[in-house]
């Protein structure tokens, strides 16, 4: 008997390198944003209609600076990686520059995210 077709967690060990990681992050970030937006909408609804406590609790989480670090990371990554994917999809002849595209993506991501986070921390410190 042959073994069952079963990739499971072995796939994670596959050394796909950068592009595979980017895809995994894109997928996770996309799901995370859906979750984030979805919960936010529903909690806003409850707050508006019932002034519910759950909503306030959730908002506290959402507005905490640590959570915002994460959310901004996720959104920024998803948006930039998505842009790379879109560009390569619409002009497949550029796919041979995929490596360069990935570099460029991080080149934009790191300063943008870094700056945002720094300003937020500075503001936080000032605001007390």
């Amino acid at each position, binding site marked *: 008997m042959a073994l069952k077709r079963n990739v499971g967690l072995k796939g994670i060990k596959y050394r796909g390198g950068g592009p595979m990681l980017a895809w995994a992050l894109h997928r996770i970030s996309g799901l995370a944003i859906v979750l984030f*937006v979805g919960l936010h909408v529903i909690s806003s609804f409850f707050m*508006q209609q019932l002034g519910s406590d759950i909503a306030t609790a959730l908002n506290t989480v959402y507005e905490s600076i640590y959570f915002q670090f994460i959310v901004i990371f996720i959104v920024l990554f998803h948006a930039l990686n*998505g842009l790379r994917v879109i560009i390569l999809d619409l002009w497949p002849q550029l796919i041979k520059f995929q490596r360069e595209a990935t570099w460029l993506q991080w080149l934009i991501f790191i300063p943008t995210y870094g700056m945002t986070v720094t300003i937020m921390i500075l503001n936080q410190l000032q605001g007390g």
Partner: protein
Amino acid sequence: MSSRPAPQIGFSFEYLMWIFTRISGLVMYLLAFVGLVMAFWMGAHQQVDIGALARWTFFPNPNHVTNTNIPDVTLGWSNAWWQVMEMLIFLFAVTHGMNGVRVIYEDYIGNTWGRALGRGIIFLLWIFLLIVGIYVILAS
């Protein structure tokens, strides 16, 4: 050396959703860009912190704009134009996102039955989110 008939453009569901994902991605960029530029134009530089700005960029809802120092900061920011803007971006984001969920689900599900079931559930969720979201926007 030889001319051959080009195939007709095939409008398969998979293709339409695929191209929608790309287009909606670009549209969100555009809308966010407008939101960001106009926020600055309205004086965001002095009025809001960057977290709020980020949230506004994606969802230009005045509720997202807070500033402990200026009590009525959102005054100029809440009007019909922004409601339309927010609805648009919300529509695109939720549709794009729920379709993404569908794609992920269908990557894993091969059989027709499971696919139909999944599509049904995701479709209902999508409608539900849209209704609730638009209600919230209009009511705020």
